């Protein structure tokens, strides 16, 4: 056990810190979940990519710098520390990419990874359907064989930033004689052109962050299938474990939120309820605990012990911690907590109430926490299915 960073890791941290400090936009960009903000965020993604910081752990040939997983976590800590723009491409670069690395053909890697990492090709996630949420295997969208490809039909929903993306990835039933997890195929499909209609949906916080996707005989060539036909469920599961495990929510994000909370408490300590002090300490500890849990998971992974179903406990932890941290901030702000962005008197431009609303989504997306607890009980503890 050695919990110090190596010289190389420290040098890596220094290098990303100095680049980020010199390059992060001086004023925060408008929300990446709005059309205008999204475009500005893509410009930032290009800048990141061109300097080699977009996907640090990727192979060099796709624009990465072959950083270790520890270094990736260090990058994330530095990224959030300077409050750099949120990664609007994350559902592609963090959730689709691991699947492409594992299941994609060489041609797919060439075609997709680099443009995606540069923000030139943005790809949204399209798992959910109106009647298939937690029970994803009950999905109804179909793909019918046609000359040189497939015709996709159905409806997907809650696709994050789908209204601004070029493409999406999702599951479609290719074998109508099979049910549930069998006979599904993993497709990449365009979000523009004939056969597809995209409708933005405003989220709780007012941003147009969601999209509904309506597909009617949308043509997709064979080369857009990831993995084998009818084996889409297995392929998709590889992505969901990255989503719950490491890649979606790295500790740097929560460490930065905890640091902002500490700063907020210091500014309001004379006026706020002194009992909130312990809650601030709890938020700080939660971020620390998540950090060390994650470093340990990475060592385990590198030692050949993948995180597996324990990623469900991980997802419950960070999402509930994030809600409590934001609740504490709102309690510190007292009446000021109600002020939304655009309000002159709002502390930090209303970031806490905005962040609170998004934190409330944490226990819902990436598989609800109820589902995560089911998984943990059955696959970590070995309890029988009901």
């Amino acid at each position, binding site marked *: 056990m050695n919990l110090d960073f190596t010289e190389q890791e420290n040098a890596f941290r220094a290098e990303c810190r100095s680049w980020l400090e010199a390059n992060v936009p001086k004023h925060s960009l408008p929300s990446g979940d709005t059309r205008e903000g999204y475009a500005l965020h893509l410009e930032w993604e290009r800048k990141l990519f061109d300097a080699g910081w977009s996907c640090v752990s990727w192979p060099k040939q796709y624009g990465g710098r072959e950083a270790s997983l520890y270094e990736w976590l260090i990058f994330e800590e530095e990224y959030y520390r300077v409050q750099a723009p949120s990664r609007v491409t994350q559902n592609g670069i963090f959730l689709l990419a691991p699947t492409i690395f594992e299941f994609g053909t060489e041609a797919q890697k060439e075609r997709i990874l680099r443009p995606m990492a540069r923000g030139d090709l943005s790809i949204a996630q399209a798992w959910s359907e109106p009647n298939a949420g937690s029970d994803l295997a009950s999905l109804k969208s179909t793909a019918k064989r046609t000359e040189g490809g497939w015709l996709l039909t159905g409806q997907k929903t809650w696709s994050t930033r789908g209204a601004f993306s070029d493409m999406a990835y999702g599951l479609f039933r290719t074998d109508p004689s099979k049910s549930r997890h069998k006979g599904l195929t993993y497709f990449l499909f365009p979000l523009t052109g004939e056969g597809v209609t995209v409708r933005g949906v405003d989220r709780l916080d007012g941003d147009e962050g969601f999209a509904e996707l309506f597909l009617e005989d949308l043509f997709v060539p064979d080369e857009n299938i990831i993995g084998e036909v009818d084996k889409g469920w297995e392929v998709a599961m590889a992505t969901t474990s990255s989503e719950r495990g490491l890649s979606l929510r790295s500790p740097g994000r929560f460490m930065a939120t905890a640091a902002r909370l500490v700063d907020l408490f210091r500014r309001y300590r004379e006026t706020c309820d002194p009992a909130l002090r312990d809650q601030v300490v709890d938020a700080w500890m939660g971020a620390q605990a998540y950090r060390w*849990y994650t470093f340990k998971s990475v*060592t385990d992974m590198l030692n050949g012990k993948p995180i597996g179903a324990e990623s469900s406990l991980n997802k*419950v932890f960070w999402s509930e911690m994030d809600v409590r941290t934001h609740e504490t901030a709102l309690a510190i702000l007292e009446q000021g907590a109600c002020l939304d962005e655009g309000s002159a008197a709002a502390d930090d431009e209303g970031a806490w109430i905005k962040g609170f609303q998004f934190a409330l989504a944490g226990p819902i997306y990436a598989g609800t926490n109820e589902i995560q607890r089911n998984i943990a*009980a059955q696959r970590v*503890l070995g*309890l*029988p299915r009901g």
Partner: protein
Amino acid sequence: MHFAFSEDQTLLRDTVRDVLSKECTPEVVRRVWTGDNAERAPVWGTLAENGFVGMAASEDAGGMGMSEVDLALVLEEAGYAGLTGPIVETALAGLPLLETLGAGGPHASWIERVAGGEASLALCFEGQLLALHAPLADLLLVARGDALYAVPRADAGLAPQVAVDRATSVATLAYEPQAAHLVAQGPAAQAAIQLAYERAALGNACVLVGLARRMLDMAVAYAKDREQFGKPIGTQQAVQHHLANAAGRIAFAQPVVYRAAWALANRDRGGDETRTEAELAVSTAKIYAEEAGRVAARIALQVHGAIGYTIECDLHFFMKRVWTIAPFYGTSAAHRARIGAHIL
């Protein structure tokens, strides 16, 4: 960065686990629970023979010079087995303290006796009204200001009390410092006492994690076995979610505790900064482990239903152990305050 125990460390853990699973069975804990003081540390002899008690002492003193990281997993196993007696106080905190301050002095003869398992230690830090395990320990290490006293049990003014965990002895003490007991005084003594406090808090955290794991295992086994409505209660989602919650507490307490062990073992590598970091890590570990223990106790009891609410069921040993040891070496409130004073 490399966050894993070495093969030697996990091997040591497996050995201790093996010994304890054979010798520190629930029946043995039950005997201690109902027996007299003389029987309160039944497995101590075997542990001492295997060198587990003196592990942290230097090789000169008959130990193995082992660190907090080496001991962390051993103490977790001690918690898991419900081992009775002052293992944390003796092996992790007291013995190195006695060796640091007492070697070459009038109390030096105790060091080898303790390292060899012939004598055990209890700790009493400033402001502590009760001393855990004191009625059982041969020597009490009593800290007053910047002075450490080594007090034979008979001289400590002990008044044994009854802890909710009958297998753990506690006493109040009315001790007036005597020159004959003085081990050391001054800044070096104070620093060593502070370090012993950190080690005791860390050791307690390790034991609490072990206790939490044990109660979760018992509850999971019970949930698979007990049937109601024609199927195991463990198929019910409400029961599953309770158990998943306990598992989550443990999964996050473990790395926090291991990291604290490492930070404490390597506290001096970066001067004051790393010493402070170690203190904050120990406080976080104590809070997380205590919470894991308390939550696991509550959930395990709930999952057991009424049978868990009897002293026929072994569960109560582990629950009551948590309630008994958790307030020692810094309550969660005290540790939160310590973190708050530093970060806020």
